[in-house]
């Protein structure tokens, strides 16, 4: 007797967002990345289309990171002061996208000027042909000053700019709209605020299919369960037809995993925890693979080895 295959069909589909623009499209990227498009629970391809597979963005900072532990830093030691070279290295390590995090424009972290920042962005665009995510420093005043300049400098490249928060969304939304970029909307692990910020930016005329949501990430041992369930609720809402939640999701795994004390404590400090050299890599990889299961579309990561573990994991699942 044949058993009928029961398909659990979903009412909603996550929108597709394309990051990066080739020459033909008015940019200079060698490749573009499209994320989203799912209309089934992650990896359940027998129920519907799981959409594009998760993409990995590797972080580049405009200032040298101060607190990276040695097992991570050693892979970038020669490039931390040159974002362009750093980006090249990420491309070699297999990044799908580069995420330029502009911590250096923060008043406490260097207060870098608009001109310096614009030339950093330009240098990366020249150094690699991967699509670019450009993320401010989360100081509203500085972001509102610098991001418009950055956006203008990268006009046509269809970057992903971040982040619009409920307190500060107007400027970045306006420039992303004007310069043809995609936009990250940001919420503090809160499904309502996540939706509300999406409504606020669409009220300004920003198209839903250019939004990527960021719900703030918690690493393994630092609130990953909460973060997972928010992603899961959001995705189920999207698949049930909630338009405001039907956007791809980005998470920040690298930064969160590598500031966990489990990733930072040396062998002398924590001999019982296993090898310092491997711990951080595993911490980052497990955080990433867990969140992939909740349906995230873009994962920001740091360590080349974790990246290759996670890429293999994605291949195995798809």
């Amino acid at each position: 007797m044949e058993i009928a295959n029961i398909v659990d069909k979903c009412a909603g589909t996550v929108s597709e967002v394309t990051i990066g623009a080739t020459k033909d499209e008015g940019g200079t990227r060698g490749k573009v990345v499209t994320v989203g498009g799912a209309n089934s629970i992650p990896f359940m391809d027998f129920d519907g289309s799981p959409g594009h597979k998760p993409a990995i963005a590797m972080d580049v900072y405009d200032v040298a990171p101060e607190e990276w532990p040695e097992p991570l830093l050693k892979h970038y030691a020669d490039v931390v002061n040159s974002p362009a070279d750093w980006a090249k290295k990420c491309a070699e390590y297999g990044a799908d996208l580069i995420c330029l995090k502009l911590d250096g424009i923060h008043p406490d972290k260097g207060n870098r000027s608009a001109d310096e920042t614009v030339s950093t962005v330009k240098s990366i665009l020249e150094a690699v042909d991967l699509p670019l995510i450009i993320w401010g420093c989360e100081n509203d005043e500085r972001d509102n000053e610098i991001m418009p300049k950055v956006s203008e400098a990268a006009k046509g490249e269809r970057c992903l700019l971040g982040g619009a928060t409920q307190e500060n969304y107007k400027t970045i939304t306006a420039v992303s709209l004007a310069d043809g970029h995609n936009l990250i909307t940001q919420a503090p692990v809160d499904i309502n605020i996540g939706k509300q910020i999406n409504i606020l930016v669409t009220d300004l005329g920003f198209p839903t299919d250019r939004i990527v949501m960021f719900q703030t990430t918690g690493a393994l041992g630092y609130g990953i369960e909460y973060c997972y369930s928010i992603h899961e609720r959001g995705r189920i809402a999207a698949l049930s037809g909630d338009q405001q939640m039907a956007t791809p999701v980005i998470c920040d795994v690298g930064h969160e995993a590598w500031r966990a004390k489990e990733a930072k404590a040396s062998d002398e400090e924590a001999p019982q925890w296993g090898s310092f050299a491997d711990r951080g890599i595993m911490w980052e990889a497990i955080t990433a693979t867990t969140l992939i299961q909740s349906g995230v579309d873009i994962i920001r990561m740091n360590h080349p080895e974790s990246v290759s573990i996670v890429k293999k994991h994605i291949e195995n699942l798809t």
Partner: protein
Amino acid sequence: MSENSNTYKIHFLPNDQNVEVNEGSTVLDAAHSANIYINSICGGDGVCGKCKVIISDGTVDAPASKLLSKEEVDKNYIIACEAGITSDLQVLIPHETRLEGKKILLDQNEQHTMTWKAILGQAGFEHDALVKKICLKLEPPTMDDNVADHERLYQAIMMKQGIELNVMQTGYSILRKLPFVLRENDWTVTVTLGHRGRVLEIIDVQPGDTSSNNYGVAIDVGTTTVVACLLELETSKVVDSEAVYNAQMKYGEDYIQRIMYAMQNDTLDEMQRSIVADINKLISTLVERNSIKLDDITSIVCAGNTAMHHFLLGLDPERIRKEPYIPTANFIPPIRAIQLGIDINSRGLLYTLPSVAAYVGADITSGAAAIRLDKEEKPTLLIDIGTNGEVVLGNKEWMVCCSASAGPAFEGSGIKHGMRAAKGAIEIMHITKEFEVSYSAIGDVAPRGICGSGLLDCIAEMLRSGIIDRSGKFQKGIKSDKLRERDDEHEFVLVSKEETGIDSDIVITQADIANLIRSKGAIYAAVSMLIESMGLGINDVHCVYLAGGFGNYLNVRNAITIGMLPDMPASRIKFVGNTSLTGAKMALLSEDAFEAVQNIASMMTYFDLMGNQKYMDEYMSANFLPHTNLDEFPSVQEELSSLNQQLSGTN
């Protein structure tokens, strides 16, 4: 005697009242002992900042307060509850702190000299007062007809009213005077009959025909205002009505604070006397103004929340406040009004309408009867917005109710220029795309503040004109100098100082907006919880009755636009004013109505929302304009997107 027992003389202006107090008392204490009302929402905890007064002479020991602006500090303003008295003082109570123009708005359908026959008829209640007077012409006894006086009276009542003998009851004092009264006017007497449960009591017997002199008082015993309405029971005519602010306000603006005050200071008796004094004052005003005799008032029906009933009857309210929130009684038998110290006919009865639970009181059961929720075929909603927001959903077969801790924002409390619906309150507001504000104030005087309906208009209109976004945040980019920053907070000027009846601009602040959004969110969340708990959708709700003291007028569309009420055609929403009082009047005039309230109270199922996670989720998503789930507000979505396009077109 210690040196701390120095006393100081405090002179209050403009009241021109003097009081002597001990050192260490606060200015607010002094005002209380002088019986001067000063606004105080927090009841003296130093957090609301409503009790601002000006020290025009003398010194006080007052800590620096964030609740005062720099301008106010320069003008010698202090927070009365925080200022310890250290010398003789002259205190000026500014306009905004005073409770002035005692006239509180009464319901519009409170047109005097109108009879309630039609209203009762419409509601399907028979006019048959709880306490009525009937005139009887008795046959004098003879040798052949030697029935005793008392039984003769019973027979006459039975003949005229068709009442069974075994349900009647007479008091001792009536028996003692009975033979004389019967013979005084040649066997013509007027009997006053009152319902006491299943028993019909002969409350009084008077010689002659006095049946037309029978009055009753319906009272809405509110936390904030007490409204009394005098009715002629035989004709069902509304004679007059009057309202006062509840004098218990000096013990705290909400009843939880009052319960705490009563318990901490052991002042339950004092607080009972306070509410009884309010009621006596109302009744004596009504009696004097209409030249009727106090003795002719034979009945009172009270409808108030559970806590106010406890205060009125001197019942211990402590357990209302504490888990598992148990009132002493929901159904209270009729008692003689005199037992509480209320002055009417010394044998007159006081009926308190029944409550459902600690946080759903007789104001709600009475309101549900007034709109005849118990006759509705289809599910119908009653939303009563008072100091708490109560919601009832039901029809003739079932009713569920809950209390949303909406807070008193829509009564004007906790809002910088909020006020109750009284003279000078802005009740209608309109804002143009150019940010010009037009308004209408109650009593056509210079505005002194904004009442509930005005605040509701204000939020809806600021959203439409783009002054705020959907999260309620001011849009700092707008081209208007009316949006400004004062004392580290953004505010929008609605009426400039020159036009107002107070000594400052009337503004709405960012905190006010957040407060109002939370309040409307709590109400909407309670509504959606109730609807969902019955497995219904908003389209299954046939009609929404919105009750409360917003003002004379309420823009239903604006209530939908801000997401306080569900998105449905405005024709299905009715603003019904003070239904608590309406129900009390009906109960006074009709035993049917009184029974209907009892039935409603016993059929209502109470849903406790406190600590309910689902309610918290609903509440969080409702904290947005109109709501985070736009699908629930399709017509508002359409309206706002077309406005958005217009706005971005003009920029």
